[in-house]
């Protein structure tokens, strides 16, 4: 009896019909595609965009050139030199070279920073056509948004 049922199921192509039914249902379902760039996804809070340096609410740069990020980075992305300001006795960086092409977005530098100066931004548009554009110097580490895109497209000096 069971064999007969199996034979009829095979003869009447039941398994294929079930598969076709599944795909037909999916055909009419709403698609999850987000039409970039007209619509954009809301990025989560901890999203790992490009690394940027930040300033505090008064506009004073937070980086104290302690080189914790340089020591933490596994990919050798940083080249930092600091100098002590004679009046305030605080360190500040004079050279902060960062290489975007080596960064693996591992977040070890962000976790190592004691002053929260270096953080992930939400910038994911990191494409460029010239390699020197991927090497950032100190003033360029503070660029964001359209300025950053102009810098990436044009290379150093844009």
């Amino acid at each position, binding site marked *: 009896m069971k064999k007969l049922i199996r034979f009829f199921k095979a003869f009447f*192509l039941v398994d*294929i019909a079930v*598969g*076709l039914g*599944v*795909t*037909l249902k*999916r*055909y009419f*379902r709403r*698609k*999850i*595609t987000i*039409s970039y760039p007209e619509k954009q996804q809301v990025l989560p809070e901890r999203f790992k965009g490009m690394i940027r340096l930040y300033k505090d609410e008064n506009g004073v740069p937070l980086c104290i050139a302690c080189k914790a990020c340089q020591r933490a980075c596994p990919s050798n992305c940083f080249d930092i030199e600091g100098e002590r300001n004679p009046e305030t006795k605080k360190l500040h960086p004079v050279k902060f070279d960062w290489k975007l092409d080596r960064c693996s977005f591992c977040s070890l530098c962000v976790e190592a920073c004691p002053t929260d100066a270096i953080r992930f931004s939400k910038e994911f548009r990191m494409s460029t056509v010239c390699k020197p554009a991927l090497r950032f110097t100190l003033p360029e580490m503070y660029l964001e948004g359209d300025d950053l895109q102009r810098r990436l497209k044009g290379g150093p000096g844009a």
Partner: protein
Amino acid sequence: MTSPAPFIFEFLIPLGKIIAVILYPMVMVIIMIWLERRVVALIQGRLGPNRVGFQGLLQPIADAVKVFFKEDIIQRNADKLLFNIAPVLVMFSSLLAFCFVPLGEPIRIGSYELTLWIAQSSVGLLFVLGMSAISVFGVIFGGWASNSKYPLMGALRSVIQVLIYEIPIGLTVLTVVVLARSIDLVEIVRAQQAGKVWYGFLMPVSAVVFWISGIAETNRAPFDLPEAESELVAGYHTEYSGLKFAFFYISEYAHMVLVSSLVVLLFFGGWLPPFANVAALSFLHKVPGFVWYLIKIMFFLFLYVWIRGTLPRYRFDELIKLAWKWLIPLSLVNFLVVVLLKLLL
């Protein structure tokens, strides 16, 4: 008005019909390119081409322009004549078969009856089946002339597949011929009109076997092993690029349109509206015949793409086993049953 009339009636109108009936599969091919990509994408849960033109309808034109500009690469040791002839042969056989494919009942314009076919022959069906078998030559030429192991293996597999699946096609077509008493495609449709029930519903086994064999004939999923990308042997058109590749591509779609036309004509009433004998639905008769024909063909083309999106691929030995162990015995038994029932009833 006697002098221009023969010129118009015997030259211009047939020329116009030839152009129309050659354009018809080409237009269907263009629609198919869009349909395939859009439908497969929607089945897969993504959107498919929707940027070029409204809903991506201009995508085939973008594809055609792209393919036109591609470099035409020929192997150094390839047989140039056969290499160049192969795509032409395949295209030629696919398009020529449309000569005898009727699109609808003749239309009256004034005192002239415009027939919606290039020619009507009492052996139309035989010619169509023969032409679709000639495409095998183009495949062999393409595989051989490419001078490479993989296209040759793919071409041989494709040829074996086409030849073996011709047998169930022939047998199921014979059942239709037995009922309609004619091999003329126009007469077969008229016989379905007279018989009130379309042959697809009278002989569902024939229709299904013909459809499955038709899919195998056109090398489409689930029988597309000879041309699948994920198998090593990428098929007879591996070495082709540019416009020649486009020819293979177009002729595959044209062949699909041909098989769909055959299914519709032989089994599903051609240009006849459904429910022809139900008086309440007589408004369906107002729609012209060839519109019904197009609707039915579009359904079968959609079915082609739907099946491609769903089913995995048959391995080659299973493909052959399916034909030898199931389809051919089934179609033989079916033929005997139909003949017996026709004798008895």
